[in-house]
């Protein structure tokens, strides 16, 4: 018995060392490695083999779940990462806190294939730190067998005739963003009066809500448990495959659209390899493969045009927001700390 105990303990002690050893011996390609850290289910992993064959650079791939988890990992000294794909507002925050390296665009000629709409945006106005990867919008997803009216405004989420059937984002930034847009304010406002007004709206909405959700929205909308809720356009296409009654609407008040872009942490050990990888990802062929796999809109305009020809026009209009949609919609900006803290404070207040 005692021997078993000792063996177990020794095993437990050696485990981290073993993991470390395996980590070190992961093997390098002829031209070294690149460590890529991306959202889960946000890339066609078969492209890694193509990249390794073309360049001789070995890809080590890992994933994160939220921008905040990525930020928290990097702040804690992070692992050894060369390429990350955060969203707009998080890129702004990382730039502000000197966490990103300036890119050498002579290694990234495919930057010319990126749609002008996704260049020079507020989070990286000089296009120095990021190359846009995928984009998308938030919209209203509703069940047309339960809601016969045409939905076109955020007001549907605050309509008491749908009481008990409404879902809402379970995080302060997205929930407040919708309330602010509905009130006609910017979702990046730093005006506390406007934010408090949005809070009153959310507090009045809470009694008619069914639940605050994130990914549970897939189940609840697909099964008919709830009738309406806000979520991402790309995810709507997945939901609609499982329940054809679901419809997508972009509210007239404007919405949030996001740009996830490829960046290099300032501490990256393989910066040139990282730039080669970013260039590869920005190419039309690879953008198409990724887009077909994840159904988000690529920032590469050539890939988008080719994809448009093979896609159902309705699906295309959901995936790709037109210019006029983007005109009154906004990308999240990084907000000052006191505003972020106000959000958290009001969120706790809302869920008391």
């Amino acid at each position, binding site marked *: 018995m005692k021997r078993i105990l000792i063996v177990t303990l*020794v095993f437990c002690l050696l485990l981290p060392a073993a993991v470390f050893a395996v980590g070190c011996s992961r093997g390098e390609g002829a031209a070294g490695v690149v460590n890529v850290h991306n959202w889960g289910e946000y890339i066609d992993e078969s492209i890694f083999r193509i990249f390794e064959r073309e360049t001789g650079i070995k890809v080590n791939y890992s994933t994160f779940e939220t921008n905040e988890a990525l930020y*928290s990992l990097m702040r804690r000294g992070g692992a050894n990462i060369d390429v990350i794909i955060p969203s707009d507002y998080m890129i702004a925050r990382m730039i502000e806190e000197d966490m990103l390296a300036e890119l050498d665009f002579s290694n990234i000629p495919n930057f010319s294939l990126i749609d002008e709409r996704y260049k020079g945006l507020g989070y990286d106005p000089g296009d120095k730190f990021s190359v846009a990867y995928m984009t998308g919008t938030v919209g209203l997803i509703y069940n047309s067998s339960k809601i016969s009216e045409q939905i076109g405004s955020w007001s549907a989420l605050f309509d008491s005739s749908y009481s008990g059937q409404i879902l809402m984002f379970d*995080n302060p*930034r997205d929930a407040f963003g919708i309330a602010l847009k509905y009130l006609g304010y910017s979702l990046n406002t730093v005006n506390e009066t406007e934010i408090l007004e949005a809070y009153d709206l959310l507090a009045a909405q809470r009694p008619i809500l069914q639940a605050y959700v994130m990914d549970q929205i897939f189940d609840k909308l697909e099964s008919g448990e709830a009738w309406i809720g806000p979520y991402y356009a790309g995810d709507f296409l997945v939901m609609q495959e499982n329940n054809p009654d679901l419809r997508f609407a972009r509210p007239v008040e404007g919405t949030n659209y996001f740009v996830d872009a490829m960046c290099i942490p300032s501490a990256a050990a393989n910066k040139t390899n990282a730039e080669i990888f970013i260039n590869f990802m920005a190419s039309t062929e690879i953008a198409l493969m990724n887009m077909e796999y994840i159904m988000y809109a690529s920032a590469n305009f050539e890939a988008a045009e080719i994809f448009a020809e093979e896609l159902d026009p309705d699906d295309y209009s959901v995936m790709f927001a037109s210019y006029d949609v983007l005109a009154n919609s906004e990308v999240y900006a990084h907000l000052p700390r006191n505003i*972020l803290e106000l959000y*958290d404070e009001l969120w*706790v207040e809302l869920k*008391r």
Partner: protein
Amino acid sequence: MKPKYFSIPYIVWMGIFVVAPIFFVVVYAFTTADGYPTLQNFAAMSRFTPVFIRSFLLAFISTVICILIGYPVAYILSREGKRVQRLMIMLIVLPMWMNFLLRTYAWMSILENTGLLNRFLAFLGLPALNIINTPTAVVIGMVYNFLPFMILPVYSVIVKIDRSLFEAAQDLGANNFSVFRKVVFPMSLPGVLSGIMMVFVPAVSTFVITQLLGGGMVMMLGDLIEMQFLGTAYNPQLGSAIALVMMFIVIVFMYFVNRFGQSDEKAVGA
């Protein structure tokens, strides 16, 4: 004969994975984001009073329900034959082989308004129950997940009680109820106490259950702490301070529970 150096791996293990994290929590709780000592993380704590009260209340209710269900189960089980005991213990442990999140998701589909339970009730012509997205659903989820942690320690204590003690008590004229009240129950208290600890502590800090079964409508301590680390504002200092206050309350609570247990044992001895 036990050489002392056999305990070294254990001490190192505990040092790395138990002592060090608690040390960091304490350090974070008393510093600002720039690393200066401060008490300001605790100043805002009163804002979270409703969250504290709700978490401890729901954890308390769940623990009581776990005792009310778990104790009889453990007691009845201990009086069954060896084969039945083995089979039943397996059935109790079996669900724990599945991922906790999956099991909680399953409860979501059971309790939903259009879920299994309500479809069954409708089939019987009974009115629907509105449980999902309420604190009741959260308590159901916690009781379901933590019940084995109450049954197992109670069972393992009761099953070890010497049967001859029951016979002795009966010889001295005790009826079945008195045997239970004066012999079985006092002797099983250590099991109940460790059961309480193993149910109450994780219940206080639960977080995913509130999001899945509670519909995120109310916040519990686990959610609040998670929000400080993975939320918009990234405030690990405040998160650590909340965790520390929670730990403190739990320790005080456990101290009194144990005191109660010990005084009861003494009463038996006297």
